Every structure is written in C-alpha cells, then in structure tokens.
C-alpha cells in the first residue's frame, strides 16, 4: 500500500478501517539464499538494500523478539557524519546522504530532521582537534562549520556562557546533522523489505549455527532449522553471545548506554547540542521531549538498564551548559546494550567461517549508520567484497595494526 496524503484522507473518511498490515507474519521457509540474523535497523536495512539494490528476494530476517526491539528503538535518534578518520568519515557521509533521500526512497516518513548538530569546544586543544575534524569532513564531501563563542551566543543564547566552570570557546556545527524518528526507520525498512518479498520472522531466536567443515550452512532457531547459502549476523549488542555460538571471540565488549527523555516542552532546542567538558548531548523531539544521553555506564553488561551515577553525571553535564533545564523533569530512562569495540569503530566483514558474515561493533554510533551499514553489508553479501567506503571495517585490523580510533583511547572499549 502506497502512503500519501490522499490515502490518509480517503481512509479518514472511511473510519481508518482499510489500513493493511505493514508487514506479513510469515512462517520460516526451509531454505533461503540469505538469512539475516536480527531484525534491528541494520538487519532490516540490509534486507531492504539486498532486495532493492541487488535484486535478491529469497531472504529471511529472523528476530528473537519484535522487529525493531534492539537499539534502533532505544537510541537518541541522532544522525551526523562528523567523523575524523578516513576509515569512518566517507562511510558516515554516505549514510547521511542516504538519510537525506530515505523517506522518498521507502515511502515512509521517518521524520529525518536536519536541524544541525553542534559540538561545543571548551579548550584550545579541543578547538584544534575539531578544526582538524571539520576539515576532514570537508575533504570527504561533508559540511562543517566552526562557530566562535560570540556566534554561538547570538544563535543559542540559552547556553551557559557567563557562569561556566569550563567556558564555551566555540563549537563545530554540522548543519546537515539532526535527528530521525528511530522506530519509523525500522518500520520503513521492514515495510520496504517485506513489500519486496523478504520474510521478516519475529519471535524466532537463533539457537545455533550449522557449521560443517568450516562452512556455515544455516541456522538453528526456536522455530526450527533454516538452511541458508549465507548467514549474515547483525545483532549489535548481542554480538558476543551470538558469535560465541559459532565459536568466535570478538574484539567487542557489551556495555549499556542509558538514554533519557523529559516531559514534553514547547520548542527550546533547535538542533543537537553536545557538551565538550562533560558527558551530555541533547536534542528535542518533535513531541517536545528533550532527548539526551551521556556516557556508557562502563562495565560489561547485557542487562538493558543502568545505574544512578551515570544518570547524575549526565544531568550535571546538562545543568552545566544549559541551566534553564533545571525545572524540566526527566520522564523516562532506558538502556541499550552496545557492542563496544576495541577501537570504537565497527565491523562489516566476512568471518573465517565461509558463508558466515558479521556486522557489529557499532558502539553507540549505530543508529546514524543504519542506511550505510545495510547498504554496505548488502554489497558485501551480494558481491563478496567490501563496499569502497567500508574497506577498513575489518575484523583483522587489530592484528594488522590498522586502527580506526577516533578518540585515541586504545584497546579499552568502555573509553570509546
């Protein structure tokens, strides 16, 4: 069913009774060309682009819970391509360009809203690093803009300029950055994939891989065995547990990132703002809630919940840069499990097991990557080689010494 204003009008006149299910609820077939494990954002976009770009239709996406139940539905909805390193920046810029055409592409309004992202600068060293980054963004064809404190004061008068422990000295804007309605991304991709014949099978947990002589032939699931020519794992947050079933240890730890939303407020923030002297980033949703987050809790966990110290740390950061939010109330907090990788950057790669592919390690940058991740994973699955913008996202990069360490924190996942 194609969505349009006319459709809404005609349905409205007939009591909205003619809307059809957005996706089917198929039973698994015995065999597929590709089985994608995980109907999160990345898994669904992979299926969508496999079908749309590479004409592959005999695909299943199997999901342990409900589609979109992973981090696609529990993030702070930010999109941006303000990366530094050549291993990352072209990839994220491609992703941002895909976001920019996404809604028309899949005929679903995910509310891609490019209201800008701003990284505040509080020291000269930080300024130098952001200038370096902004220039890297330009070199990769992205946009960037450096604003002085005076320019910021004019544009964002509510920030704490005059009574700050760490005064604001400027900031790096990416005007094309912004937010997207996260759930709608999963739904849009699911709908698009389903329309093209992809079977999205919810409540179907993978319990094992069928590996024979070093080749992956399919998966065991809670709904029976499914044979597949290729198995594409795409379960960030659960990568450790799932790949353990294939006997693999990964350069990944699972950590929880909490996120928060306030009660609905009339418009306050134009775009995304991140604090540079503490852990706090924030945007305002179309519904009016301030959506914010900070640092990960910092210990290995698979429990989708965090603890108070980080809640307080994040709120301190918020109060430090925008003390006018003191009387806004935190409404809800939640936690998502992140694949924290050893250099803070992801993987889209084959494994040493033939036919078994891996996509993960997104740290807390997975949401913005959703389109490009799916696109590049689809490319790898269909063509057998990495997409040109994802050539560094390999599992063996640590052995080779080719790191993609944006923050320069080294092999300690909780620092990325």
């Amino acid at each position, binding site marked *: 069913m194609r969505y349009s204003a006319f459709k809404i009008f005609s349905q409205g006149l007939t009591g909205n009774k003619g809307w059809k299910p957005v996706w089917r609820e198929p039973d698994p077939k015995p065999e597929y060309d590709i089985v994608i494990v995980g109907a999160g954002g990345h898994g669904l976009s992979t299926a969508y682009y496999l079908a749309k770009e590479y004409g592959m239709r005999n695909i299943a996406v199997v999901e342990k819970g409900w589609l979109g139940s992973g981090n696609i539905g529990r993030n702070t909805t930010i999109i941006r391509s303000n990366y530094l390193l050549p291993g990352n920046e072209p990839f994220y810029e491609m992703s941002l360009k895909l976001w920019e055409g996404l809604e028309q592409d899949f005929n679903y309004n995910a509310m891609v809203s490019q209201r800008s992202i701003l990284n505040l600068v509080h020291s000269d060293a930080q300024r130098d690093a952001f200038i370096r980054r902004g220039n890297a963004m330009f070199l990769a064809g992205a946009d960037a803009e450096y604003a002085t404190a005076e320019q910021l004061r004019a544009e964002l008068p509510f920030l704490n300029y005059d009574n700050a422990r760490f005064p604001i000295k400027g900031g790096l804007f990416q005007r094309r950055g912004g937010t997207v309605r996260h759930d709608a991304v999963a739904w849009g991709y699911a709908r698009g994939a389903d329309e093209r014949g992809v079977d999205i099978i919810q409540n179907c947990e993978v319990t094992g891989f069928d590996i024979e002589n070093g080749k992956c032939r399919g998966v065991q699931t809670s709904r029976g065995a499914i044979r597949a020519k290729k198995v594409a794992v795409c379960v960030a947050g659960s990568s450790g547990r799932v790949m353990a079933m294939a006997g693999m240890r990964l350069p990944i730890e699972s950590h929880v990132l909490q996120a928060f939303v306030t009660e609905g407020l009339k418009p306050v923030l134009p775009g995304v703002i991140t604090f540079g002297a503490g852990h706090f980033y924030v945007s305002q949703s179309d519904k009016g809630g301030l959506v914010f987050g900070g640092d990960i809790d910092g210990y290995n966990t698979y429990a989708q919940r965090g603890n108070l110290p980080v809640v307080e740390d994040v709120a301190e950061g918020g109060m*430090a840069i925008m003390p006018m939010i003191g009387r806004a109330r935190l409404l809800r907090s939640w936690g998502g499990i992140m694949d924290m990788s050893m250099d803070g950057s992801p993987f889209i790669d084959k494994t040493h097991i033939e036919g078994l592919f891996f996509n993960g390690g997104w740290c807390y940058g997975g949401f913005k990557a959703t389109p490009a991740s799916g696109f590049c994973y689809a490319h790898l699955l269909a063509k057998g080689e990495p997409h040109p913008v994802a050539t560094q996202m390999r599992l063996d990069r640590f052995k080779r010494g080719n790191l993609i360490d944006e923050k320069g924190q080294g092999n300690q996942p909780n620092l990325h």
Partner: protein
Amino acid sequence: MSQTNRIKGGLIDRNQVMNFTFNGKAMQGHAGDTLASALLANGQRLVGRSFKYHRPRGIFTAGSEEPNALVQLRSGAYQEPNTRATVAELFDGLTATSQNHRGSLEFDLMAVTDLMAPFLSAGFYYKTFMWPRAFWEKLYEPMIRKSAGLGSLSMEEDPDSYDKGFVHCDLLVIGAGPSGLSAALAAGRAGARVVLADEDFTPGGRLNAETLEVDGTAGADWAAQAIAELAAMDNVRIMTRTTVYGAYDHGIYGALERCTDHLASSGGKPRQILWRIYSKRAVLAAGSTERPIAFGNNDRPGVMLAGAVRTYANRYGVTPGQQVAVFTNNDDGWRTAADLAANGVAINAIIDTRDAPAVCDVPGARHIRNAAVVDTVGRKGLKSVTLTDGQVIPVDCLAVSGGWSPNVHLTCHQRGRPTWREDICAFVPGADLPPGMAVAGAANGSMTLAAALTEGRAVANAQIKALGMTPSRKAAPKAEDEPRDCAPFWHVGESKNRAWLDLQNDVTVKDVKQSYREGFRSVEHLKRYTTLGMATDQGKTANIPALAIMAECTGKTLQDTGTTIFRPPYTPVPLGALGGRSRGKDFRPYRLTPSHKWASENGATFVEVGNWLRAQWYARPGEQGWRDSVDREVEMTRNSVGICDVTTLGKIDVQGKDAAEFLNKVYANGFAKLAVGKVRYGLMLREDGICYDDGTTARMGENHYVMTTTTANAVLVFRRMEFARQCLWPDLDVHLISTTDGWAQFAVAGPNARNLLRKVIDAGHDISNEAFPFMGCGEVTVCGGMPARLFRISFSGELAYEIAVPARYGNSMMQVLMEAGKEFDAVPYGTEALGVMRIEKGHAAGNELNGQTTAYNLGMGKMVSQTKECIGNVLSQRPEMLLEDAIKLVGFRPVDRSQKLIAGSHFITKGDEATMANDQGWMTSVAYSPSLGHSIGLGFIKSGDTRKGEVVRAVSPIHGTEIEVEIVSAHFIDPEGERLRA
C-alpha cells in the same frame, strides 16, 4: 469565585486560608489542599487541553498518576511546566496557568485539530508530509513542533538550588499507606534502621482518603498515631514528600524529596534533595492505581476516577460535582457513592457493568445493573451521560472505576515482568523482583485494608529475619476486609464516539484497533506506534485497558500480551535535582596552583586545564592583547630568565627495591641503569603500542624515584602503574604514591636561570654546569634551610631547572624567585608562552600525543626497546603501524612568512585535489614564534622525515583558506641543544 464545592470534613485546616490564582483568576483554598482540590472546591472543572487534539480536560485523579490536570506553576525564572495539580500542595500566593492552548483555555484556537481527527489517526505522520522533500523541514515539521509539547521553560537559569544525599538503612519501606505503616512499625519495633518514604505530604496513603477504620479508630487518625510512634523511634527515619523513583542495583534506590515546593519561596534552601538510599532490604508498599473504563467522550471535565472523587470528598472536603453518578465494574466504585452520599452529595445513579446485587445501600441512588455509559455530553464540563439503553442521566460528575492496578513499577526496574492475576483483574509483581525487595499490600495484589495491614507486618518480619534480627511480636493492626470483587470490563463496545485511553496523548480505542490492523501488535509496537503511555503520566491509568483491548484483538491472554517495561523514574524528576550542586562554577572542583594567589595579583589570565586553573599569560599595562604578553614572556625568557608554575604536572613517588625494574617495564625506553642524581625522559606506551604519556623520572636515591607525568594524564598513569604493580608483576617490591599537590614546582628557564637560582639556593650547593649538568637532580635547601628538590630539565629548550618546595611555601617561593630575579628582568610566564617555546623546540605535547600516534610517528621509534619486557613494545611492532609512508612528526613554516598557520589544517601534496584520498596528514600545533618572527607549526605528514624542504598545501576548508608550507625540522630553535646544556 467562592468555594462552592466545599463540603464538611477532610484533613484540611479551614482556619488557614490560602489565596491563589489560576489563569489570573483569584481563588481561595486551605492548608492541606492540593491545587487540584482547591480548583475543584472553587468549581473550576476545565483545567487544561490535551496534547494532540486540544480537547478540554479536567482533573481526573487525585494523585501522581494524573494525565490531564497539568499546569504551569509559578512565574518568571521559577516557572515550572507540566506540574500535576493533583500533587501540587497549595500555598498562599500560588499562581498557576493552564497549558497547551493558543488563545484562552476556554477558547483554544488549536481545538480545530479535533475536527481533523479522522485524518490524524495513529501514526498518520509516518504516511505523509514527504512531498515535496524540502517542505518537511521548512513547513511541516516546524508546524508539528510548534503544536507539540505541553508547558514551557522560562529559558532562564533555574534560580533554585538543589542538594543530594546518601541514606543508609536496614530496611527501606516505600509508601506510608496501610501496608507500609504496618511494615515500618514491625521493623521499627524490631530495632532495625528503617527509612519510611512517601510521596505525599501527609503519610497514610489511602487511609487518608477512605472512611475505613483500623484498630477501631478512623484510618487517618490511626495513620497519624502510627507516624507519631515511628517518629519517636531513633532507628526510624520518616521521609515525607519523598518519592522513591527508581530501584537500582544492589539495594540502591533513588528518591526525590521536595523540600520547598510547598512554600511560596525556598528561602535560599535547596528546593529538592536527591537521595540515594542504600538499603539492605526493601518493602515496596506503593499501593495501587485505579484505572478507567473507555467509553464515548469519556474525557470530559467531570469524568473522574471513582477513588479520586471520594478522595476529594473524604480528605479534602470537596465534592467534584453536585450531581454525581458512579460507573463501575467492581465493588470499590460503590464506596465512592456511599461516601459522597454520606456527605450529602446527590448520587444519581450507580451504573454497574455486572449483573450483581447492590454492594451497599446508597440513599437516593439508582442501581443500574448490567449497564454501561456509552457517551457523554458537555464539552467543557460534563452535563449528562447516556447509557447503553439510551437513557440519559444528568450529572456534572461521573465517577468511573475499572478496577485497581497494583503499583508494580519498582518491581520491574531490574527487568522483572509482572504476572496477570485473573481474580483481581490485575498485573501483580512477578517472581523476578530486584534482589532484597519484597512487596506488600495493594502493590502486591492484596487489595483489602485488612490484607494490607497483615501483609505489611508479615513481609517486614520476613525481611527482619533475613537480616538476622528478631522480629517484634506485636500483632498486626486490625481492620475489616472490605468488598473488592471486580469483573473485567475495559471498554464499552457500543460507543460510537471516540473512547479515550491515554488522556494526555489522546490515544483512543480505535487507535489501538488500527495499530492491531496495521501489524503493530506487540505491546512495544503498540506503544511506539500510537504513543500510548508515553506522556508525562507514563500511562499509569491508560496502559492496562489498552493492553486488554489489544489482547481482545489478538485473542491472547493478558499474561501473554504482557506489559511494556516499567523504567525509572516512577514519577518525573527535575533535572536540577539530578544535577545537584554540580552546576555553574561548581560543576567540578577547582584545583589551584601554589602560586595562584601571586598570579592573580600580578595580571594573570587563567585557563582551565582539566580541573586546574593555570596562569595563561601575565598581562602588563599597555599591552594590547594576549599576543603582546606572550611574545614578551617568550622573548624575555629566551633572553634572560622566566618562571613558570609547573606544579600541575603529575608527580608520583616510586619507592622499593624493585623500583628500577618496575620503571623499566612501564616505560618503553630503558630505565634500569639510571644513576642516582640523574633524570631521564621517559615515554609510556599503552599495551596497544600507542604513546599515551611522557615525562621525566628522577632517581633521588637507591630505591627512590620521582616520576612526572603530563598534567592531563596524572591520574591515568598512576592507575595504570598500580595495575602493573598489582596485576602484572605482583611480586615486585615497589610502592607508589602521588605527590602532585605536595610540591610547588617552578620552571626557571633562560640563560640567567642559574644566576637566579644561585641567589635562592643555599650556599654550599654547587649548581655549576659541571657539578649539576643537564639532566641532573638532587635535594637542596633554599632560603636558609628549606628543603627543596632541583631538577635540571628543560621544556623550553633553554638552560632550565625545575625547583620544588613544599606546596605551602609555593606562593612565597614565587615571590622570592621574582624578587631575586629582578636584576635579570625575570618574567613569570604562562601556559601560552610555555606552549610557544615547546613548539619552537619541537617537543610533542597533548596535540601530538593524542592517543592515535606511535613512537614511530613521533620520530621516537628507536626509543621503544625490543630487548626488554615493557608495556606496549610487542604490539607496537604490528606491520601496519610501521609502514614506510606512515605519518611522521615534523615542523612547518609558511612559505610566505607573513601567513599564519592553522592548527587542524590538513596537508595536501601540491597539485593534488583536496580530498580525503589525498590527505597527507594534519597540523597539530601552531604558534607565532617571536624568536623567528613568523608562524611555525608542528604536524604529522606521511613520510615526513624524508620530505624536509618540500612545499605542501595546508588546507583548512572550514576557514576557506589554504597556504603553502615548507616541511622543516621540528626543532626550530637550537637544534643541537647547546643552550640547555650551557
């Protein structure tokens, strides 16, 4: 307007009159009122507008579950959006305004959206606003954003202060209703350290709202007695106005105490306190929340929850209406009818969905069995209700009860799932409670007063036993079991008009059905697609009926349908409280250098370096800008002598028989053979082979070393060294302790450095070049016997020393050095001049040691020993870290010397296009070199060590600039190091 709806009774103090305004209208209430009870007393039924359709709404509940009656409280910078009138205590002078309307509350222009409702059903926005693309951000979204949101922030800094605190207890009792009081009494009598927390300002819970008796006294009186008994116990702490909002790991609970919200002014005291309650055990006695039944136009002002209606009557002495009907599926609804009737309020009808006899006798009320309300009339205030059989009953208040849901929220904060109990039509706590928690009373599905009292004591006693204490033998308080039968009934199928579930977010029964139709059938999909339960009330009244309707659609049981996950906070918590005192200048502590006082008296501008404040430069009168000061400081240092407080560098005292061996393992370069009285530069690698810190280490004695780290990494280096000491080489005899703050350390640099120091170092210490050469160290005395440490090290490239004295003498030492330096025109210099000189000298600092670069990149690859065991040397040899065309640190100068270099520019080979593929590296640090008279820079560029003399482009597209730069040695000044050895 007068208090037309005041009736007799209640817990209010009629002698205290409180004046307040609502939308500018002056009204009066009494001490003990909430804003909601006072508004109702004044006959104000319309109090707000709903989120999506701007429907007129009234007060719906009498507690924190309120979805409708949200107001903006106070004014100016104190403006507080989305405040529930139902929990806001009335104070004299209170001002409140209604929210979310354009025009007046009565005539909201945005109400037009309600007429468009057929086209605005669940998820409509996902299906449109896509064409043309540019219109989304230009037109559609701004329109949506403007109409979304409820209250407004003042945009001024929150003028109130907040505090935090830590409370420890054996048993935390959450809720001071009947079961909570019973539990607290039992635990308190047993001698346990008890914290009893309740969100209300008057503890007692439903006891204050009911006419039930405990131990033969009125419930509210019994509650007051119980509180008095508890208050007299040293081991019990009663925290009223305190909401326990979250259950975190290992018995830690988050709680918010509202200290001054009930006062006209906080009087300079913290407005609220965020408590972290550390409990060994907890009893959740959070009670239950009533839920509505969905029927056509059930959102009119005047349609209220039945329990709330009698709360207003019994506790506040207010009747929400003069002509009241009750619509119920359970026995409890009848209590409302009975209690109001007893207060002389006309009860027109009791409409019971069940085909059952009357629960009690209610004078004057018609009992209509097996019936339901299908619709209502009265846009801005209820006028009548229509029943399934078509009969119309004129009423101005309809009390609705769809049964009660235990407040299981906190039981689910650690991912526990509630279970459905058919007999009470409710979800009760599941098996996976947060460790240490037990549940009692209505929160546990024990819905009668008698059961709550008994269970409260029993659960507390079990917890007391588990703590190894002896329970008190005193019996539980006694009450009667009131009738609580309930028959499931969620929505009136016959209703043609919209039947509302989520009153704040305007989610209707039809929306739930459409969600099902479109495939959004999991409860999480339902929530996310329709926004059910995502409003400020978190669906406390709406969720269960909506889930029941989804269960009807899918044919599943409610148990299988499940609930969405309850997460903290239970009720919303202001960000100000979560931030506590850490805001403004108090966001983080200040660390001051020992000479801070002197510096601030001598023209210093300070800069934040981590938590330190350091002098950035010292302006002198007549200087036009910071560059004047910095240039002067550099020139005078290089020409004579300058003094810089370098105390912030980390200092670690390393002692032990194996200290040398230990240092040899943590530094990449050799340290085994450093002689006593000598200093060595040391490079530290992370285990992954990347450089992360450098500094000098001085051998002060046979088993005694003093290490310095960078300012930024002092804590990190210490942590990693402790790791090495305890976890990697546990049998080395080595001991670490930080002395960073203990020694005031000053760099004294420049050709006259020795001459200056000779004046302050006591005679008898030979500091001549021969006796005390470059990289020497030792203990000396200054100013007549003051112990000091002297290091001959140089960051500036000049003849330089660092001299350290006990920190309490630091400010004095700075004065002395300046006094003694007068004859040399000694200058103090700040971090800017320090930075200029280190760039002139080609020393790497934070911009170069940024966690991404190796010794190989820094041109120090050979320092990394491969002939000893040390951290990082193995992984530093990975093949792609040693590529021939790897970036190397070199110097840069502009071809046109008048041009200014920009840190963060990228290098592009001449003739190449400025793209990422052609990126050759970047400029890390730049400075104007007063010594050379032009801008200089350090930077990493591919194969830099072999490209000296080449001219490349330094591009900074973010500035729109590009300049030609020449690759040169990083050592701009004195490359042979003659000065520092002088």
